[in-house]
């Protein structure tokens, strides 16, 4: 039986109440799961014989201003890879706008440390249980989380000969 079906069986047998939906856009298997079941699910995948010991990436998407926001403003996506089967799949979690908190995966994977710090810095999602959740990329005096859709790009209008005497105008 191929690896895609094996992953699907593993998850539906043991964690059927945590999975919300499955989706196969462009042949990429991804499961949308509930927030509270994430850590146990990842622990079970780590200990299973599917060899899911490689966490490739942790990403976040902000759906502010889109019709999708009704399902939850933030979406955190975990990119898991199996070295033995050379297979990649995704776990997606939706978080509400007023409480963007999720359990940290640093006890399982050391590589999650900096990845979660970056998601906190740029998007503002709090990871409970992270050892050192501080700013990593933005300067210390920048307030706010830059990658959110309501943070402006802060584009400055270039100064030409007709507006060079005024201070530069910032378009938000």
């Amino acid at each position, binding site marked *: 039986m191929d690896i895609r079906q094996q992953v699907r069986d593993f998850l539906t047998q043991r964690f059927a109440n945590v999975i919300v939906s499955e989706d196969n856009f*462009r042949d990429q298997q991804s499961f949308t799961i509930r927030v509270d079941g994430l850590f146990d699910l990842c622990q079970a995948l780590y200990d299973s014989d599917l060899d899911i010991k490689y966490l*490739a990436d942790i990403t976040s998407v902000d*759906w502010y201003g889109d019709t999708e926001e009704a399902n939850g403003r933030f979406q955190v996506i975990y*990119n898991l890879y199996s*070295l033995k089967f050379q297979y990649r799949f995704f776990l997606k979690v939706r978080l509400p706008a007023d409480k963007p908190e999720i359990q940290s995966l640093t006890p399982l994977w*050391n590589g999650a440390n900096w*990845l979660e710090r970056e998601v906190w810095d740029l998007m503002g999602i709090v990871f409970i249980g992270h050892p050192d959740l501080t700013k990593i990329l*933005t300067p210390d005096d920048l307030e706010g989380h830059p990658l959110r859709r309501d943070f402006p*790009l802060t584009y400055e209008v270039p100064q030409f000969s007709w507006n060079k005497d005024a201070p530069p105008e910032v378009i938000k």
Partner: protein
Amino acid sequence: MPEAKTVTLNMGPQHPSTHGVLRVEVELDGETVVKARPVIGYLHTGIEKTMESKLYYKAIPCTDRMDYLAPMSNNLGFCLAVEKLMEIEVPEKVKWARVCLTELTRIASHLVWLGTHALDIGAMSMLLYTFRERELIIDVYEACAGQRMMSTYFRIGGLAHELPRDFEKKIRTILKVIPERMKDYEALLTNNQIFINRTKGVAVISADDAINWSLSGPMLRGSGVKHDLRKANPYSAYEKFDFEIATGTNGDAYDRYLLRLKEIRQSLRIVQQALDGMPEGPYRAHVPGVVLPPKEDVLHKMESMIFHFKIITEGFKAPKGQVYQAIEAPKGELGFFISSDGSNKPNRVRVRPPSFINLAALPALVEGRLFADVVVAIGSIDIVLGEVDR
């Protein structure tokens, strides 16, 4: 008896051997490193947010500036991700040309790594030799796209222009010259007692630790894990080429040095195969409304001109969904995650930066060792700060 206290030393953002603006705060007890904490963000450019405000193919020049030592591999990753999202099938010639140029990029990146790594250890003439070889490869970039470094040659659906007329001649020169010069490098460094003393047993990481820290590229393969995305999940016609994966045994800096030299040789092999078997055909896919038509058609046919105008001003609307495409960049697994909300601009572009994740493992490599090993470890991880900070 007073207790011994540790000294906190700052290897600041401006330092000759940190390969850019990396700051490392080291706590030293004598010469032994007790704690090492890298501080990054001095080159944060907000490239991901900039790409959200641009049309899909206008975002390609932003990708060049991330890993600026291997610009064509960034272009390749982004173009493959967008082509996956839009379900565009590119012609065979484009795939082979992309493989050829990406492998040349890998050779150029490893040459710069070799020069700067040897410079940090003390062998200063290696920098001059490797930059001389790199000029040959930059010459090919300039013939293809007109720019020495940030060429932006790969576009969505194909290449920017037709391959130049002297493409084959220039690459055959490279294939003849570089193996000879590689013998010089090996004679200088491989059996050099000083180099061996400084790199053998230094910056060691075991295979299980490497997988747990999510390392990729030569860092992972140096510890013995045989994982290369070109063989595991092939993209862009890599399954038709015959090459070996280089692995190390101990996971120390010396093994990674030998591994990268072997990767240069395997890349030369791939370039030879690509040049010998390059198929004929168009240099862009024909997908009206999405891929820019060739310039000859734009100047002569009406529909091409209309499509050209529409694509340049409005772009194309991508279907709603999220894709991820990973390639094997010289530094590791470079991935592009594009989330589209159905409009002509991407909702979120995320770059999975191999250097950022590899650099996170620096404390595990140097704690408990001598201070001089910090410089060797940073050089052996092969970071480029443009990608770490984006």
